[in-house]
C-alpha cells in the first residue's frame, strides 16, 4: 500500500470518528487541537484503524498515553529527559522536534502524518 493510499484510508477513519470534513484532514492537522479529538475518540480511532487496515494496535503503541500518567516521564506538565528518551524509543512515528527545545507536554505534535507514519511502519512490520 502506498503512502497516499494509507492517507486516503486514514482520512476516511478520521472523518467518521471525529465528524470533521474531508478537507480538514490535512497532513499537518493536529488530532486534538485542530480536529477536536477527545480522549474516547482516540479509542474510536484505534478501533476504526484496526478494521480499515486489518491490524492489531496494542494499547499505548500509537498514542503514548501511559507516558503522560507516569511521574517519572511527565512532571508539572513538562516531559522529563527520561520521558523524552522513552518517547523517542517507543514512538518513532511521532515528531518530537518541538519537544527538544521546549519540554511542555503540549509540544508533542500528534498529527495526521503521525498516524500515517505509524500505520506505514505497522504494515511493513507485517510484511
Amino acid at each position, binding site marked *: 500500500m502506498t503512502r497516499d493510499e494509507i492517507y486516503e484510508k486514514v482520512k476516511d477513519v478520521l472523518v*467518521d*470518528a471525529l465528524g470533521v470534513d474531508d478537507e480538514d484532514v490535512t497532513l499537518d492537522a493536529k488530532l486534538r487541537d485542530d480536529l477536536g479529538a477527545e*480522549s*474516547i*475518540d*482516540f*479509542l*474510536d480511532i*484505534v*478501533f476504526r484503524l*484496526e*478494521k480499515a487496515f486489518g491490524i492489531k494496535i496494542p*494499547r499505548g503503541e500509537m*498514542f503514548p*498515553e501511559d507516558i*503522560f*500518567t507516569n511521574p517519572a516521564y511527565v512532571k508539572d506538565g513538562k516531559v522529563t529527559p527520561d520521558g523524552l528518551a522513552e518517547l523517542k524509543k517507543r514512538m518513532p512515528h511521532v515528531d518530537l522536534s518541538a519537544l527538544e527545545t521546549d519540554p511542555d507536554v503540549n509540544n508533542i505534535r500528534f498529527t495526521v502524518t503521525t498516524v500515517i507514519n505509524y500505520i506505514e511502519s505497522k504494515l511493513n512490520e507485517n510484511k
Partner: protein
Amino acid sequence: MRWIWIDKFTAFEPRKSATAIKNVSLAEEHLHDLYPDFPIVPHSLIIEGMAQTAGILVGQANDFAEKVILAKISRATFHRLVRPGETLTFNARIDQMAEHGAATSGTVTVGEDLVAEMEIMFSHIDQNMSGMQFPEHNFVFTEQFASLLNSYKDSLKVLL
C-alpha cells in the same frame, strides 16, 4: 422513578450480543412532554435504552469488574416515531473490545419496522488515559441492572 429504560432481556450471548425489550405505556409521564396531544418516546430515551442493553452486555463481558460508561454516540439514525402501546426491541452487539473500552452497534425495532440504528462506544473509566481515579465501588452496575440480567437467567431456568 427508576432510571431504567428496558423491561427485560430476551436473549443474551456473553461477549457477543443481547436483545432487550421495552413496552411503552401511555402512563409514562415523559411521553407527554415533547408534543402536546401527540405522545411519543423521545429519541434520547431510545438511545438510553440501547445504551443500557449494550452497556450491560459490555459490563458482563468482564464480570462487571469494570465501570462501563457511555462515552460516545458515534451514530444514531432514526427512521420512525414510537408511540404508546408499542414494544421496542433493542438488538445490541459488541463490535470491538479492548482493555479501556468497547465499540457496540445495533438496531431498534418495533415488530418488523426499523426504528433506529446506532453505534455507541463505552469507556472502562478506571482505565482512562488521564489516569483519573474513581471510587472503588462499582456505581454503574447497581442492583437494578443486576436484577435485569438475573431475571433473564431465571426465566431460562423456568423454560428449561
